[in-house]
């Protein structure tokens, strides 16, 4: 464990540890980025979508005649049209099926009902307004608990006869009997219901595509917003029957992803069908309301947790039962074996032997989904639950929450550590991170201040979260999505003049891959970072990869990049030996050159070696200098950190004010400190968002009550605290660079710190839990009930 990054390369080379300025930025700062809606193709048409005002209804008829009379409206596509081609259903990533367009029934408000193709965006919208749909409303189930009640209306009668219930699946992990026994024997048991509401990633750019069918060449080019373009190509080939070599999926600059651009939405499919039908490029760009009302949601976990401990506060056992609201179909973007994602990482940073976790997936009349919101497959839900439970335990037995954590942490010498639910944590040093956060924020003084304030009746709280993340999916023995193993890839070509083109299987949505992946190559081969160009997102050129989500770019594709570079270094050594007339064993590598041991003036630079690869390669060796690597990680990586939040609560209004927030993160070895810090700042703000502001709620008719940015409350600069960040460095022992991934840690770790701070401020009033978002109205209601406000 260290806290400093000392680069091995010079600033000119700019390998790992340098805060290299991003290559993406000069185009972004000029407004010259090219996002999907900036792209215009010759002859391009527009597609817009008719959506259901009802959450559950029978479609009795669709009358498109008025729409088709509007000059410029070329076609109206309905479910009946798609049914003829067998395209009205599509498979979901979770093995369920999702309507592209309905033929009989709509299942959630804003579901796609028909598509209008027109010559302009405005005319398409006019067409949408003119399509008349005759609905007969049906009863609506919005509460998953009610969906599970005996006799509840079955929402998906299309499922097999033995599955005529709203329970989609039951999943469990750990040892139930052992856990029950340990709980029964525990001196102290605490239990709590914790709801983590439905939220939306709300990337600042919505989703969209241009499907461009070239009938002459039989070529489909799909320009789209996707975090996983290669998988999309394969799925499109399988579903459409088009030969895969004739499908090109191409991404452009993307305005954020956060998991929301992993799934295939009906809009994409409709644009493809429309382009195939009319033989012209068809653009579909969803607007913000469609984005918030119909795209994949995140969270929506109803958790009941029970924690057992000794009198002294040593945790012995954890039992968790969860209901997961999946909407009308299970379209969760999880690896195949994990219907509840990696939720069973819920034992967190703590050393105990007994855990049992069960989750039931449930259908309701809500949009489908189950994407990340900047986290790795349900780890946020897990971290929130364990960090809240540990805090409740500490308060219940009257022990300082920091002390209780310290006494229960997995110790550094226990790594690799096997958890009771089967994960093997790679490395960690949790106590040091927490102590650093406590020192940075002045923990002991804050506790004294809190006591003094409480005596005066003021509400101040201090909350801690000591989280362990689980990222970098994943090893092929456990991890696949629709059968595709979750490896990732990099292909590096070194040109004769010593300049480098590298292509990666992952996809940036703002993380700065063009810079950090160049830094990995600079680190491994010593080419200056400015001489290295990184490409991605074009399935015709980039090697196959599973994409960017779950913080897997650095752990998987980053490793592939290092391994590909090392293959090039191996060949470069042979070339250098040839050029220097020395044996390979006599050569020494330092970034950028091979020299003869003991004769430092006898060396060849990597650029000279590259030139020789094309001009003077030895007999029997292939010309050229390039390599490709498909990396199958041996394990996941486990970043961690400790966050401390200080809040003051306005007793009059219930408003929570975050006074300070210290975040100490450990993501292993760091490629670009500036980018890592930026990722943590951004992640913290996306952790703040659902803690205090964002939630997608529904009324009893299934109407989305947060369908625009007027009601879906994304924080601004005013709401965002001045984050204070620190770091420790505990390398991953199995990653070639010792790196772990960082893009999502802060979103995972921040909410329980904030929630724990709020509950800490209210605990003396008898408050044990406040579900997020902890809005003023919710806090005020508690204060009012307790006679405070």
């Amino acid at each position, binding site marked *: 464990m260290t806290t400093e990054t000392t680069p091995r390369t010079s600033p000119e080379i700019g390998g790992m540890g340098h805060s290299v300025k991003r290559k993406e930025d000069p185009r972004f700062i000029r407004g010259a980025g090219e996002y999907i809606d900036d792209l215009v193709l010759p002859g391009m048409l527009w597609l817009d979508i008719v959506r259901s005002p009802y959450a559950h209804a029978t479609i009795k008829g669709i009358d498109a005649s008025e729409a088709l009379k509007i000059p410029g409206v070329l076609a109206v596509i309905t479910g009946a049209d798609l049914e003829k081609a067998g395209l009205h259903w599509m498979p979901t990533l979770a093995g369920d099926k999702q309507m592209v367009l309905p033929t009989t029934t709509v299942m959630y408000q804003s579901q796609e009902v028909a598509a209008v193709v027109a010559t302009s965006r405005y005319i398409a919208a006019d067409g949408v*307004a003119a399509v008349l749909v005759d609905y007969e409303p049906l009863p609506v189930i919005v509460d998953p608990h009610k969906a599970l009640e005996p006799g509840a209306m079955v929402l998906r009668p299309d499922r097999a006869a033995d599955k005529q219930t709203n329970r989609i699946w039951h999943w469990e992990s750990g040892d139930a009997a052992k856990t029950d026994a340990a709980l029964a024997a525990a001196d102290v048991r605490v239990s709590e219901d914790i709801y983590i509401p439905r939220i939306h990633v709300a990337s600042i750019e919505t989703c969209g595509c241009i499907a461009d069918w070239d009938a002459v060449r039989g070529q489909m080019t799909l320009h789209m917003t996707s975090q996983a373009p290669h998988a999309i190509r394969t799925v499109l080939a399988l579903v459409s029957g088009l030969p895969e070599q004739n499908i090109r999926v191409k991404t452009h600059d993307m305005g954020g992803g956060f998991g929301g651009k992993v799934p295939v939405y009906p809009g994409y499919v409709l644009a493809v069908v429309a382009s195939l039908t009319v033989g012209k490029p068809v653009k579909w760009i969803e607007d913000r309301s469609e984005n918030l009302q119909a795209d994949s949601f995140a969270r929506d976990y109803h958790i009941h947790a029970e924690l057992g401990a000794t009198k002294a506060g040593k945790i012995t056992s954890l039992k968790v039962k969860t209901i997961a609201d999946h909407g009308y179909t299970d379209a969760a973007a999880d690896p195949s074996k994990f219907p509840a994602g990696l939720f069973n990482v819920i034992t967190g940073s703590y050393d105990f032997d007994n855990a049992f976790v069960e989750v039931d997936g449930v259908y309701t009349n809500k949009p489908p989904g189950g994407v990340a919101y900047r986290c790795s497959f349900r780890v946020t839900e897990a971290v929130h639950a364990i960090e809240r439970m540990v805090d409740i335990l500490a308060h219940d037995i009257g022990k300082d929450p920091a002390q209780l954590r310290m006494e229960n942490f997995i110790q550094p010498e226990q790594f690799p550590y096997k958890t009771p639910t089967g994960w093997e944590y790679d490395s960690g040093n949790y106590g040091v991170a927490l102590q650093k956060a406590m020192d940075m924020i002045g923990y002991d003084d804050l506790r004294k201040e809190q006591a003094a304030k409480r005596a005066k009746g003021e509400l101040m709280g201090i909350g801690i979260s000591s989280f362990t993340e689980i990222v970098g999916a994943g090893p092929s023995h456990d991890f696949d999505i629709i059968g595709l193993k979750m490896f990732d890839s990099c292909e590096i070509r070194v040109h004769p003049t010593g300049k480098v083109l590298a292509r990666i299987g992952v996809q940036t949505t703002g993380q700065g891959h063009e810079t950090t992946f160049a830094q990995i190559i600079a680190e491994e081969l010593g080419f200056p970072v400015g001489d290295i160009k990184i490409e991605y997102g074009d399935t015709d050129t980039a090697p196959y990869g599973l994409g960017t989500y779950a913080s897997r770019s650095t752990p998987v594709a980053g490793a592939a990049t290092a391994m590909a570079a090392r293959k090039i270094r191996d060949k470069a050594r042979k070339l250098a030996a040839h050029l220097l007339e020395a044996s390979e064993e006599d050569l020494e590598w330092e970034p950028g050159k091979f020299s003869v041991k003991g004769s430092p003036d006898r060396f060849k630079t990597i650029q000279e070696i590259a030139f020789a690869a094309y001009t003077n390669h030895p007999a029997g060796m292939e010309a050229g200098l390039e390599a490709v690597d498909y990396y199958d990680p041996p394990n996941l990586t486990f970043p961690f950190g400790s966050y401390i939040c200080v809040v003051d609560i306005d007793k*009059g209004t219930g408003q929570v004010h975050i006074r300070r927030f210290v975040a100490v993160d450990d993501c292993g070895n760091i490629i670009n400190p500036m980018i890592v810090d930026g990722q943590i700042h951004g992640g913290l703000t996306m952790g703040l968002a659902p803690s205090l502001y964002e939630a997608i709620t529904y009324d009893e008719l299934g109407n989305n009550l947060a369908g625009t940015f007027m009601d879906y*409350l994304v924080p601004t600069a005013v709401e965002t605290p001045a984050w204070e960040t620190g770091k420790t460095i505990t390398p991953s022992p199995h990653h070639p660079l010792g790196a772990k991934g960082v893009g999502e840690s802060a979103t995972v770790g921040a909410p329980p710190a904030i929630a724990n701070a709020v509950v800490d401020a209210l605990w003396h009033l008898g408050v044990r839990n406040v579900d997020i978002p902890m809005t*003023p109205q919710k806090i*005020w209601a508690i204060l009012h009930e307790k006679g405070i406000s």
Partner: protein
Amino acid sequence: MIPGQFDYVRPADMAETLRILKDREGEAKLLSGGYSLLPLIKLRLAQPALLVDLRDVAGLDGIAETDDYLRIGARATHRQIHEMPMVRDRYPLLHDVTAVIGDPQVRNWGTIGGSVAHADPASDWPAVLLATSSTIICRSQSRERAIAAREFFLDTFTTAIEPTEVLTEIRIPRRPRGAGGAYQKLERKVGDFATVGVAAVVRLGANGRIESAGIGLTGVAETPFAATDAEAILAGNAPAEELFRKAAAAAGAQSRPAGDVRGPVEYKRAMAAELTVRALRTAVERALANA
């Protein structure tokens, strides 16, 4: 989100504007800024047949004090009002409200007349006009008339303006010695419409007692309203925390909020009271400083 279709005219002067309103009575909607109206049109919650853009109509944008009142032209933007030195120095209530309407983009382009005529039940200006007992001037081809703010806001998005009339100016009574005002707004995040907004004005007499008080509330009824019960409680009494609480309770009781995403009825009532106390405290401080 694509707006529905509408016709559009941008008359050159007031006479032409009034003629158009007369000719197309009931069809025309005035545009003065549009940051409240255009989102509604884009969401297809409003579909006017004709937009009459006031942008070129001269004489609607001045801000000046007369002997009796502060005259603000209907097309004065929130920002222009906020930045007037006279407003900053002498009308802190107006300086308060113009700092918290929407965001900078709204304040740069949105106008007081547009906002008042739109009469969103949670918009900020109406509370101020109610608290200050301001007057709203409207003109049609046949007449100009002054409408008391307290008779102006009739219902949700509904005011006393006739379809053939243009709101031309707002007259806010001059601030006398011993008077102070303040605006308090509770919002879910910056830029939001008010969950509750309270404008309070108090005038202290030579004896230190409250001679008169004006309280306008927004967000807590079908339309902004004056908390007359609270005003009556305050009048004639010496300013004190207990008195503020009593008046605030009356303001809360007089509220008729609807439960919605901004909170349930009970919470909104309580917030109306809480913000009334806070507004009164600041208003009295400012009144004392202006004695």
